[in-house]
């Protein structure tokens, strides 16, 4: 926890703490730069149709006229022109700018939703295990231990094969990522914090005053976990974006024709020599998104959770 006082911070000091933290975050140039880029990506994800309308393209129309006979885009840098700002895709001639912009939407939606589901499961399971203890805690800890070291990628690939035909693939993807990969790290941290909080004076005091366990867990313990949860959630988003991209890269992620950075990068494998820009644009977008979330998460952690150091896993 961030305060060292043994009592829960009162409202007046809480305001000061928040202002102080804002100043510290504002002084961290890298975190600010990260935050700015994150905001840009969020805006692009929300306004994807508008942005593509500016360019006058969409990510689904084939422009075979922009391709040479071999399927390679004609012209400089993979067909970069006033019409196609990032050039076009080899083979299909789809507008690469529109593909990258709509791919932002895919990455951000999958990243944020999968993180939200992971945080929900992780916080509920982790805090209750740490708070109540006993056999339940032992079971949860064992499951967390196993899942943390689990070859989740192999399982997610395998599960993709047996999805029922009518079931929407992205929903399955988000669910599987959260269940196998996301929640254990959140649960491990919240469990530890809940165990520590349980022994703090203000929690013991409210129990002594007659508060029931659920009241204490929801009203005393959970609010004090919020800083940690924010930090770990921010750090999990790039992990989820990377996981989705890796699966799409392997051809088992978001199904075509929905644009996804990972799939574009996967398609670029066979074009890397003849059309390197096809790798460059989606690759740069993926790298920038991951980097900016990591920088923001690093900065938030330094401010909210001063005890931990270095990039946590």
């Amino acid at each position, binding site marked *: 926890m961030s305060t060292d006082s043994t009592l829960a911070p009162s409202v007046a000091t809480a305001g000061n703490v928040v202002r102080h933290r804002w100043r510290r975050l504002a002084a961290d140039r890298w975190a600010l730069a990260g935050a700015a880029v994150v905001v840009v990506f969020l805006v692009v994800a929300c306004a994807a149709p508008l942005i593509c309308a500016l360019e006058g393209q969409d990510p689904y129309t084939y422009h075979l006229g922009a391709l040479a006979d071999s399927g390679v885009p004609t012209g400089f840098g993979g067909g970069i022109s006033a019409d196609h700002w990032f050039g076009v895709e080899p083979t299909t001639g789809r507008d690469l700018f529109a593909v990258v912009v709509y791919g932002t939407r895919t990455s951000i939606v999958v990243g944020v939703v999968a993180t939200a589901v992971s945080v929900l499961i992780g916080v509920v399971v982790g805090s209750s295990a740490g708070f109540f203890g006993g056999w339940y805690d032992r079971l949860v800890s064992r499951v967390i231990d196993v899942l943390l*070291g689990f*070859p989740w990628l*192999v399982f997610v690939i*395998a599960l993709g*094969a047996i999805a029922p035909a009518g079931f929407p693939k992205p929903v399955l993807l988000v669910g599987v990522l959260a269940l196998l990969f996301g929640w254990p790290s959140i649960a491990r941290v919240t469990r530890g914090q809940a165990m520590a909080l349980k022994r703090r004076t203000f929690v013991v005091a409210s129990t002594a005053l007659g508060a029931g366990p659920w009241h204490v867990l929801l009203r005393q313990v959970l609010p004090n976990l919020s800083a940690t949860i924010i930090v770990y959630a921010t750090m999990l988003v790039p992990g989820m974006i990377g996981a989705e*991209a*890796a699966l799409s*890269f392997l051809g088992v992620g978001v199904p075509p024709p929905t644009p996804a950075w990972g799939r574009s990068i996967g398609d670029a494998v066979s074009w890397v020599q003849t059309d390197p820009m096809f790798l460059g644009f989606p*690759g740069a977008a993926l790298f920038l998104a*991951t980097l900016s979330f990591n920088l923001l998460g690093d900065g938030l952690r330094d401010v909210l959770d001063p005890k931990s150091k270095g990039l946590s896993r």
Partner: protein
Amino acid sequence: MRALRLVSGRLLSMLVTLLAISLLTYAVFYLLPADPAQLSCGRPCTPQRLADARAFMGYDESWFRQYLDFLGGLVGGRTFGSGVAAVHCAAPCFGYSFRLNESVTQLILDRIPVTFSIALGAALLWLLIGVGAGMVSAVRRGTPVDRAAMTFSTVGVSAPSYLVGLLAILLFGFTLNMVPVSGYVPLTEDPVQWLWHLVLPWCVLALLSAAVYARLTRGQMLEVLGEDYIRTARAKGLGERRVIGWHALRNVLIPIVTVFGLDLGSLLGGAVITERVFSMSGLGALLLDAVGNIDLPLIVGVTLFSAFLIILANFLVDLLYGVLDPRATR
């Protein structure tokens, strides 16, 4: 005696975990509506032929019964069908791919050298680079070397291995023509070519994790260097080399080993991705093909094999931990 009890306790816990995971996996894969018998039945698929195919593959039983058969096959091997058409799958039988007419164990054994070669080399490289860079960074704290290492680390953490891999192929393979960009040569066939084909995959896969380990090592090293026993060691007049390289390193390695144990699963996943970047046919390609063909026994077999492998490796790391940190066995 105490150590023996510890090892047997861990062994028991490992077995329970293996059983739980295989049971869960089996339940999930066999309760979902995919029917391998239907797929291999051929046309025209009369009800009689379908029923025969089911009975031959063992899918006419309840899933729990099938699970028990699977466990039995792991321990003692099993036979599918009877008479002349019967196929035998020797222990440890991870299932039988009716599509490829081969036991899953054999299919895995054919592919595993590729994946192992990638994973082991990369792990070695990332530990060396990561721990090395972290140590240097901590000892030279605040110098340009430290800052460069940490900047590299932030960037490395955010760069997906397949992206770095493709850029590396473009630069070192196509532009500079220094290394081969795809394929795998077995070690037994030509060790030099084996190494030559693996250099780039190793570097690419190691980069990301080396970045994480550099940060971890640096943080841990800075903490350890502030400890009393380091001051004592220096006060005894030990050289800096011995203080850092022995007294400090040993304690830095303890949390690193824990993290490494947890990373083995990601290492396998990373190897799967790297295989695809460099067009090598390892375990990942086997699984992806199986998924493409909906070859259910092969999918389940490869998945469970990977889980077993990682859990076994974690068990070994646990034992290593006991050796490094004698306090843990007390």
